[in-house]
């Protein structure tokens, strides 16, 4: 009897198959790697895990977003690979690749730089938002015409909310 977890960690899919889970002992496959380990659930948030030559304290907290795991100061968010949204690809040093005008974090709108009906270039600034003393300009992801402005200065906005709808005028839009 196996129990299988399809997890998503740091953008990578990891499959964990538990073969045995006795009191204090686990035998598992993590992808193609065989791991046998002893463990103790010290508190509801702390697991003490001995795998191979070393032991480590692992802190865990389950949330609706997934399980947070901390080992040696580094925090990982472990999600169910099926439930997790595919995840936006991220570039180091750059904002997530956006296809919509939406804030990267909960923010307050500082100013809207465009008007409805206005034509915009790809990369043109359309909205300025502010979070934690830092202003960020959101850019048009493609050239087009501003169809609808869905926010106003002073408003609190969340990631995922489209602040400005832009109708694409580039080649892809032609049918």
């Amino acid at each position, binding site marked *: 009897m196996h129990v299988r977890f399809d997890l998503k960690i740091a953008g990578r899919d990891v499959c964990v198959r*538990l073969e045995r889970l006795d009191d204090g002992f686990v035998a598992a496959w993590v992808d193609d790697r065989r791991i046998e380990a002893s463990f103790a659930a010290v508190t509801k948030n702390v697991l003490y895990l001995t795998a191979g030559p070393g032991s480590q304290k692992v802190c865990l*907290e389950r949330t609706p977003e997934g399980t947070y795991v901390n080992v040696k100061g580094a925090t990982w968010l472990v999600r169910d690979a099926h439930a997790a949204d595919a995840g936006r690809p991220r570039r180091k040093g*750059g*904002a997530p690749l956006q296809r919509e005008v939406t804030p990267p974090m909960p923010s307050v709108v500082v100013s809207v730089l465009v008007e409805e009906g206005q034509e915009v270039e790809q990369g043109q600034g359309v909205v300025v938002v502010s979070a934690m003393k830092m202003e960020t300009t959101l850019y048009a992801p493609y050239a087009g015409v501003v169809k609808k402005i869905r926010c106003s200065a002073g408003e609190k906005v969340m990631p995922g909310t489209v602040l400005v709808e832009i109708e694409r005028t580039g080649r892809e839009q032609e049918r």
Partner: protein
Amino acid sequence: MFDTILVANRGEIAVRIMATCREMGIRTVGVYSDVDRHALHVIEADRAVALGGSNPAETYLDIDKIIAAARAEGAQAIHPGYGFLAENAQFARRCEQEGIVFIGPPSDVIRDLGDKTLARRVMHAGGVPVIPGMMEPSSDIRELVQKAEEIGFPVMVKSAKGGGGKGMRVVETPQACAEACEAASRESMNAFGSADIYVEKYLRSPRHVEVQVLADASGKVLHLYERECSIQRRHQKIIEETPSPSLTPPVRRSICEAALAAARAAGYVNAGTVEFLLDEEGGFYFLEVNTRLQVEHPVTEMVTGVDIVRRQIEIAAGMPLDLDQDDIVQRGHAIECRIYAEDPMNSFMPCPGKVVFVQEPKGPGIRVDSCLYPGCTVPMEYDPILAKLVVHAETRDACIQRAMRALREFAVMGVLTPIPFLADVIASEAFRRGETTTDFVDDFIEGWTPDVSGADIVALAAAIHLSLSRERTVDGHVVHTPAEYSPWLSLKGFRP
């Protein structure tokens, strides 16, 4: 001595100030915005007053509300912390008018030192080396370009009133100068209501070294040695240390003397910090005076043994400094790492949210100033500083080792933090060698990626934890899986 002090701030600094107040037997009044209703500085206060609203402007920056709260709660003094109203001369003046003691320098000292060219003139007159450049501001582009040519390129164009990088730009060539001055002047006008700018020599890869001073009302001025604060991202310090690895004993003596001269020239009273830029040849130049408690004051507290907040309160209460310069000795080495809610993988973008778990490091030589608790909210409205890890040890090497241990034992979950990045910076050869210039982070982040070699163990731990749903743990708690995140049935009794 005061019997009640209002702390006009939030976060870790409000908590830290209240700790010293409690030790001195002084009742503390906290203030809070709507989103800070359950913030740690509220829980730690003896009494907390709601300011109403959440924007800084309508809460921690609202002078009338702060003064009214102090009056209502009978506070004889206000500690402004750092940020918000800490360097606001108008607020200090208002306190003076209301007969409430502002724990900081007199309002006219704050005002004078806030005007950048005035501060440069004061320092120059007081014999403090300033960066070569203009001593009077101007908005005459021709005059500005001419001065730039006299100084020699590259130069820095700066707003005379400004701060925070606004209206500030580096000019490398004479050709680009006029346009840069015009733009800077325009930005300064928009941001600070004054077109006045000035030009000074631009230092490449400088180090940022500052000196802590204490001055009492009788004119006694002491320094508490320097802090090295070169490790910055977005012009904001993230790692500070003392002693500075870049000062030779003669330069240390000179820079501390210069800081005393600066404090005397400005008629300074209370705790302040004189900032300098240090060039590659060991020359140093006055940058500005921070007329408040610094974020990084704990490293100085650890190597000198002086409680700076206690001294601030005593000085504000009219007590003399009962120390002499010879009593103040640097002992050992201290490093501070700032723990922000931010994403080092994404240009250090701030990450507000809810902290679901926190475990702070402890043990010999470790101090954590923090506003964290499990379940606390990190609001989007304010600066994202969560905690400061401060470590102290006999030598710089031992201090680096201690900082690495502490960072690896610092668990924050729910919001992103730069803890793994900080650990890698501290462990780097460049940091160990003391090669800390203001370019450090930009250079370091280039080649940095977080270590993901532990992913397998993390996956295994998560799988075990998920499997333990509804099982009792050692501490007698029951681990619950929220219904919306329970892909598997309970594994109670699961055996191979």
